[in-house]
């Protein structure tokens, strides 16, 4: 037993003796006291752990394992290879395109709006109005959002009709709300506000003094942005981009209500597969689900990697 062991133990004991259920076990030898305490410690988080295992982790693992098995339960990579078949590959491709476009556009537009309301010298009400509205709009997704955009940009939507009355027919110029750009434009309705809500505190964190300090040291406006502002907001910006990406990559309700199944994004293919095994291969369905987790997971790994790199650099 290392010297000081008892001392440390005693200190630990008094520290938690009051709040500890093991208070009564004070007279026991340390080893026994620990033995009786440890399980009760963990008991406190047991419901959560069990819930997370049963309803979050195990169902996901089940699908991941299924993606690597054939119908007889034998290990195979066949399902993963099958993902390359044209319809599925096209679905992944359009999903990735919509998610990348809506997350990047949403991130930059959201950032611009956040900078405008924090740093742009606008009256105070614009800030509170924007933040309140963003809070609402970031949660306004799903089926109702699709309805709103159909009423706006659908064939009989207000904007379409107004533009047509001034001689500009959107639909003859190749626009369709049931298309890649239509869907991206719709997703921006919750992507931009989400960015605004998350990034505004980060921009608030940029002190006025930093700009003054940089100016005193002779930095140009561009240098100030490149060397001070961007490194400071970079991690939260990147994190939000990843969040926005995952947000649109997994979304199905809006697309389903908007386009029916005319735009085959991955969640819609998976939805059809769950409903009626349209691929006639249950394990291929698992592989599609695995592919979705893989992509959102990969995005997160990139985020963590970028973040540790940028943090190291900041030090």
């Amino acid at each position, binding site marked *: 037993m290392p010297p000081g062991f008892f001392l440390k133990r005693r200190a630990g004991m008094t520290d938690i003796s*009051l*709040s500890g259920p093991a208070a009564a076990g004070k007279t026991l030898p340390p080893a026994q006291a620990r033995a009786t305490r440890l399980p009760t410690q963990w008991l*406190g*988080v047991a*419901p*959560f752990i069990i*819930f*997370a295992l049963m*309803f*979050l982790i*195990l*169902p*996901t693992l*089940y*699908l991941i394992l299924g993606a690597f098995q054939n119908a007889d339960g034998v290990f195979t990579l066949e399902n993963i290879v099958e993902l390359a078949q044209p319809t599925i590959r096209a679905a992944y491709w359009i999903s990735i395109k919509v998610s990348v476009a809506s997350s990047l556009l949403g991130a930059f537009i959201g950032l*611009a*709006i956040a*900078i*405008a*309301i924090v740093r*742009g010298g606008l009256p105070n009400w*614009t800030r509170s109005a*924007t933040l*309140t509205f963003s*809070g*609402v*709009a970031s*949660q*306004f997704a799903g*089926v*109702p959002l*699709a*309805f*709103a955009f*159909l*009423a*706006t940009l659908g064939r009989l*939507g*207000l*904007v379409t009709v107004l533009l047509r009355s001034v001689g500009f027919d959107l639909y003859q110029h190749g626009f369709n709300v049931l298309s890649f750009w239509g869907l991206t434009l719709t997703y*921006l*309705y919750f992507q*931009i506000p989400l960015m605004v809500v998350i990034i505004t505190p980060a921009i608030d964190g940029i002190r006025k003094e930093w700009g003054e300090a940089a100016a005193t040291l002779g930095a140009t406006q561009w240098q100030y942005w490149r060397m001070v502002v961007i490194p400071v907001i970079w991690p939260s910006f990147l994190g939000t981009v990843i*969040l926005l990406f*995952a*947000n649109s*990559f*997994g*979304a199905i*309700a809006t697309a*389903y*209500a908007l386009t*029916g199944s005319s735009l085959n994004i991955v*969640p819609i293919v998976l*939805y059809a597969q*769950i409903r009626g095994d349209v691929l006639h291969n249950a394990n291929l369905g698992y592989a599609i*689900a695995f592919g*979705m*987790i893989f992509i*959102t997971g990969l995005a997160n790994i990139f985020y963590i990697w970028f973040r540790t790199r940028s943090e190291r650099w900041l030090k």
Partner: protein
Amino acid sequence: MKSGKFWAWITFILGAAYFFIPLIATMEFSMRMKRGEYSFEAYRVVLGDPRFQESFTFSVVAAVFTIILGVLLVVPTAYWIRLRLPQLRPVVEFVTLLPLVIPAIVIVFGYIRMYGSNSPLPFLSSDIGTSALLVIGYATLALPYMYRAVDTGLRTIDVRTLTEAAQILGAGWTTIISRVILPNVLIAVLSGAFLTFAIVIGEFTIASLLNRPAFGPYLQNIGANRAYEPAALAIIAFVITWGCMSIIQVLSRFAPKSANRPN
């Protein structure tokens, strides 16, 4: 700086236009049901539809159960992590963030395969079991928001002192959590609850794949079959979301700001 202000206004106005035009268009569209005049006919039809009332009630009940389950799950865990197992915090935080990474459709797919009628835990073999699974799925979706809200609330109180004080007075764990900790983080819990409500009330994916008569699938069904009612429903849904978010804002004014009370 003058030009900066100019661009700030341009950004703000363009943003406002993008966000208000769809709302105005939807409002206008929803009022066009009667030919040649604006009316609230579509709203009357929607609100009078018994399927609307049934599915909406179902979703409200599901949301209430989701909130109860979420609170029961999150409050003791977040409390215990703060008090006793701070070393477990990164793990629990990671788990609570997983629903943002794993899409809802994947989670529910897993449920369908794991809890079918032939499984050891046949949730899906009965109506009530399926509804329970729906509530569980919703609680999973709301987990990131609920956990963050409660954890922020716990940060503003001195968990250890409160616990010890309660223990000196002879309180057990249930009493401590329900009568000491919960009232102290009530504002945070309510914020999480209303956010959960906003997320759950119109949720489509899980409800539809579990075949529940919820509001989300009803919305989708109306959207596929009607012209003006969907616009009216979109406005109603927007108002509900707005209501939830306003309540959260009002609540946040009551939240204890004196996080570092000197004790």
